[in-house]
């Protein structure tokens, strides 16, 4: 039997990318931020992606979702199908989700209207008001968000913690098959971190998968990833389990920098 990790189309995999390269325009030059990433996430698995500031983690997450500011080469697979040529909204409708590090405000658009439109887009059908209201109330209770936020304008004047809770609330409602969580732990106090982690764990099941981007251990202790990757200078330089998290916590990233350089050297050779 072949290893499902080798075949991106294998039904056991919820997400895969192959030789993914991401470029940004920098003046009149193109700069390569992600330099060839192969990654496979099996159903039911939680992956963590750790790396120092500026390593390209957020770029990788946004590019996977289809951000128009990047040029992308390579393959992106979602539930056995290529999605790299699809616009972001089509990736979202097929089950990809990105929890933003800095969710933008959209003044004048209420949280309720936004969520109802998003849910309708994801499910392909309008949600009756009564059912929607009930679903919303439950999700707000789960994420410990005051119900008054339902009528507020989307992310407008929200604190950092409030924004992150609302991101995970969307994850709960939209039920994505694969979630990219970009620094969902940043700027959270210990109580908020607990609520957010509980939300992520609640949203996770045997059928979906996620990639949690962070550079801190504390959320990983709460979410307990199955697989941990270290990402430096646009490449995955090491893959392991929670022991890798502890090693990074003790020793920092420097000891891996040499390995990263060695890999870069190797790819150039």
């Amino acid at each position, binding site marked *: 039997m072949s290893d499902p990790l080798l075949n991106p189309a294998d039904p056991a995999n919820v997400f895969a990318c192959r030789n993914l390269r991401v470029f940004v325009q920098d003046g009149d030059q193109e700069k390569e931020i992600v330099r060839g990433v192969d990654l496979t996430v099996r159903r039911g698995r939680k992956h963590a992606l750790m790396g120092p500031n500026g390593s390209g983690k957020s770029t990788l997450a*946004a590019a996977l*979702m*289809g*951000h*128009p*500011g990047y040029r992308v080469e390579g393959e992106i697979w979602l539930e056995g199908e290529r999605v790299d040529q699809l*616009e*972001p*909204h089509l*990736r*979202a*409708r097929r089950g990809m*989700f*990105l929890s*933003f590090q800095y*969710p*933008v405000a*959209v*003044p*004048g*658009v*209420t949280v*309720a*209207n*936004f969520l*109802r*439109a*998003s849910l*309708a*887009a*994801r499910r392909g059908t*309008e949600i009756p*008001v009564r059912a*929607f*209201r009930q679903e*919303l*109330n439950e999700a707000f209770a789960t994420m410990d968000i005051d*119900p008054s936020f*339902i*009528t507020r*304008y*989307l992310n407008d004047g929200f604190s950092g913690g409030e924004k992150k809770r609302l991101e995970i609330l*969307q994850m709960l409602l*939209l039920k994505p098959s694969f979630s990219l969580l970009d620094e969902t732990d940043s700027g959270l106090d210990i109580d908020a971190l607990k609520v957010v982690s509980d939300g992520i764990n609640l949203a996770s099941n045997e059928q979906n998968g996620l990639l949690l981007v962070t550079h801190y251990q504390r959320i990983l202790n709460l979410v307990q990833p199955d697989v941990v990757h270290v990402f430096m200078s646009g490449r995955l330089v090491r893959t392991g389990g929670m022991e890798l998290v502890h090693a990074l916590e003790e020793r920092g990233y420097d000891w891996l920098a040499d390995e990263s350089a060695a890999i870069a050297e190797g790819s150039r050779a």
Partner: protein
Amino acid sequence: MSDATLRETTSQDLSSINDDYTARYGFHDPEDYFLKAPKGLNHEVVEMISRKKNEPDWMRAIRHAALDTFRAKPMPRWGDSESLDSIDFENIHYYIKPKGEQATDWNDVPEQIKKTFDRLGIPEAERKFLAGVTAQYESEVVYHSIREDLTKLGVIFMDMDSALREHPEIVRKWFGKIIPTGDNKFSALNTAVWSGGSFIYVPKGVKVDIPLQAYFRINAENMGQFERTLIIADEDSSVHYIEGCTAPTYSSDSLHSAVVELVALDRAHIRYTTIQNWSVNVYNLVTKRAHAYTDSVVEWVDGNLGSKLTMKYPAIVLKGERAHGEVLSIAFAGHGQHQDAGAKMTHVAPNTTSRIISKSISKDDGRSSYRGLVKMGRGATGCKTSVECDALLIGDHAVSDTYPTMDVAESDVRVEHEARVSKVGEEQLFYLQSRGLDPDKARLMIVNGFIEPFVKELPMEYAVELNRLIELEMEGSVG
């Protein structure tokens, strides 16, 4: 959570109508008039209009003098003077009287005209949520009605021509007193050839709790419509007046030039709401001004969606202590359109307050300008004003400009001004798209959010209609 919070989404979703302006409003009736003045502007036309209306001599004299003033006045050198210079005043019909007498029952309105107003939804709106309606077709008001209980309370709501006949003493007292003939070239033009418009008098202490509406329709090509409106809210009274307008789409230009005068006496409250949706061959050059007496409140809620060029700056003169003035406006400039709109606040009395919120959306090669003046004269102490201009640009060719002027003579005042220009942001679009919304829907949501502060001030029915209009305007736009 209330149903109200969900209504907006529903209305947006329901309104995926793929019609454009031409199909919905741009149609025209065959021309079948009682009287159509030949093109051109001269004393004979002025005389003819006045004679046909059997006006008193004093009004006729005002008209003739106004024509001379119009001719003497130079064209404004600001706004869009190039476009203004291209108006051919000799290629316009200054007066058209449709067939039939003014009716108080829609069944008595000539069939073709009734059909037009049916198609525009006016009788339906009247049944549902209005306390009174006038409907003007070309130069004359063809239908008018007011709820009986309001008449019993002494509220007068009729067309201006009828008011001149039936209430000459009130008209003579106020006509041209808020906006003198020579205020500007177009107020002079209106004064010379005015016809139709609304007259409202609300007696002391009477609160008109649901809106009165006027609808203005141009039908003929090269038409000039010059309605004249005067609203007087006596002490402690209140009234909300709404006007809407549309016209057929022609390849040649029409001209709409109204004068609107408001008087809010002590402690009165006037709200004047406009949804301007002329076709893109109409010049819309309108003068609007209010006098606000002690403790009164005047609000202009001004939405400009249509027309080729609009130049309009609703003004409030705060004459009495503690009077409050507000202008809340949105302008939408699409392909080939220029919306030069704004506001003018003149603080005369002490402790008066004002607020201007101007929002504009420019799309394609459309251009919106905010032009505003806040003046605080000597003696206007303890006054406050805040001015907020927000411009949203869609696409790389849209233009927005802001000309705010503050002229403050006293030091004991508070003046706040804020101006922002933003593009429909890539990050906002990406965020909404990442939640499954397609780019058109995402863009529409951002734009609707942008105008939300304006829309929420409108009666529900108008809010729905405005969202629908914006949706039509946004269709197929490239961000």
